[in-house]
């Protein structure tokens, strides 16, 4: 079997997150492969809709939940349009897992701060559940999540679940003007909510993912709070085709995002040319 042949997967569940965002739960058709399949939080895969092509997404479900993988996507192009048409029982393809991962084992015994904006919660959610499924291994878990409006919040049921847990501190926010009358969370941009949440930097790792503008303005806040750049992790989404370090598309400066990433520390990103 050559490297580029995907494994058939079955769409087991279709979850509408927002008007334009959807999550698919996928199960491997080959039971032997399903049994052996393993990955680490932060890794990605190439998802294919036969006839439309392949698209790159992180695996949004945690490795601790076996038997399926999930991906969350927004409709932006040919493949995501085709994914939008799929129904339960339909067949897709998956190749992976590829790339590096968040070093959760190194984070054991420390606090975790998760910061996400919009659909950027997808890769972060994988790490959150991975940590919560191994809750004893970590100390404080803080989540700051923001979206443009209440309607743009993804994983609503899970946000409720996290809000209800006493071992998780959850801050939810929407941009000014994006709130509804019954909105109980914060109103404001993610960087200012992080400032307000005032997470302590000592023994804490930050994992951040969202639109570039959010990351740009959140990093200084984290630095001010005392985080060092090697303890702030994020994940890049460059255009990719092969996922295997061959096709050259995701190369920026000395790194191939698909092989050296997608997970990078803020310190590493600083050394990269601004081509992502």
């Amino acid at each position: 079997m050559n490297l580029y042949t995907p494994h058939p997967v079955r769409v087991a569940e279709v979850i509408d997150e927002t008007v334009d965002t959807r999550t698919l739960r996928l199960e491997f058709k080959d039971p032997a492969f399903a049994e052996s399949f393993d990955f680490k939080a932060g890794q990605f895969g190439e998802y294919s809709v036969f006839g439309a092509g392949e698209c790159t997404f992180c695996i949004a479900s945690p490795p601790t939940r076996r038997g399926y993988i999930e991906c969350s996507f927004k409709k932006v192009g040919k493949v995501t349009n085709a994914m939008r048409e799929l129904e339960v029982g339909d067949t897709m393809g998956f190749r992976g897992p590829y790339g590096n991962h968040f070093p959760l084992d190194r984070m054991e015994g420390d606090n975790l701060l998760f910061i996400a904006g919009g659909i950027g919660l997808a890769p972060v959610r994988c790490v959150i559940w991975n940590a919560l499924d191994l809750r004893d291994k970590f100390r404080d878990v803080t989540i700051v999540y923001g979206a443009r409006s209440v309607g743009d919040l993804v994983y609503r049921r899970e946000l409720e679940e996290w809000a209800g847990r006493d071992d998780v501190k959850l801050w939810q926010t929407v941009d000014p003007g994006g709130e509804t009358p019954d909105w109980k969370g914060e109103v404001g941009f993610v960087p200012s909510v992080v400032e307000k949440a005032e997470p302590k930097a000592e023994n804490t790792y930050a994992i951040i993912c969202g639109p570039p503008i959010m990351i740009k303005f959140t990093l200084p806040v984290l630095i001010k709070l005392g985080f060092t750049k090697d303890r702030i992790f994020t994940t890049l989404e460059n255009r990719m085709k092969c996922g295997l370090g061959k096709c050259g598309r995701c190369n920026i400066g000395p790194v191939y995002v698909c092989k050296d990433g997608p997970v990078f520390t803020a310190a590493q990103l600083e050394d990269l040319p601004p081509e992502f």
Partner: protein
Amino acid sequence: MQELVDLTSKLLQNGDVNVVIGYEEGPRGVRPVVAATPDDCRRLIFDHRAVHNLATYLSPRRKHLRVRGRAAVVLKGCDAAAVATLLRERQLKRDDVVLIGVRCGGVYRTTTAEGALSADNVADRCGGCALREPTLVDHLVGDLPPEPPTAGQRAARIAALEELSPAERFDYWRRSLADCVRCNACRAVCPLCVCERCVADKTDPQWIESSPHLRGNFSWHMARALHLAGRCVDCGECQRACPAGIPLTVINGKVGQVMGARFGFRPTDDPDAPAPIGTFDPDDSQEFIR
């Protein structure tokens, strides 16, 4: 060409333009140059090797040149016809450019040719050229050289292909287009391929298969010919750029013949001349319609 050097230096010195796009002697033959100082202008030349159509640098796709500011550009008559088309199609504002026409006695088919112009080395379009003294200009330089010889190869090839049966022609193009790797060089150098996003790059729906197999290649070359019908000024840059040696000017030449015979169209440097596609005559011939 001292006249050209003096003129362009003055344009830069007076602040009329920010850059001059012209020809220079490169390390391996004549090539385009963007001169930004009067000193740079001393490098400007013009001779039979100036085959490039510099109008292509005025295309709205050249973002990295547009940011350099107002440009003067050196044009042969055929290049001026491309500028006229850009103006006609509102891809360029007349006030944004200074057009320096050169009186032209024909150019080689390739940048590497040598010796006197002859039927063997002259570009297809030069024989019988009506635009040797372009009129779409702000300045016109040089003396009018003698008329260029006529290259007969292309017309002969078109005629020979027309003699064949459809199946034989199909076989000819099947062999020729098999080498196309869809690098898109023909499109990139074309002064009139102005689309920000080419139909061949669109994927949803995908009208043209992007793969360089024969089916995708046939579709691409048909689409290219169609979209340039009545716009192509026959500068031959597509063929010169083609790393596979596909005789693109044979296709362009055929389309040119059709446009001439049906609609009386010839490339012109008059920006107000009507475009044959996009206009119509109620009495257009329709012998092919039942």
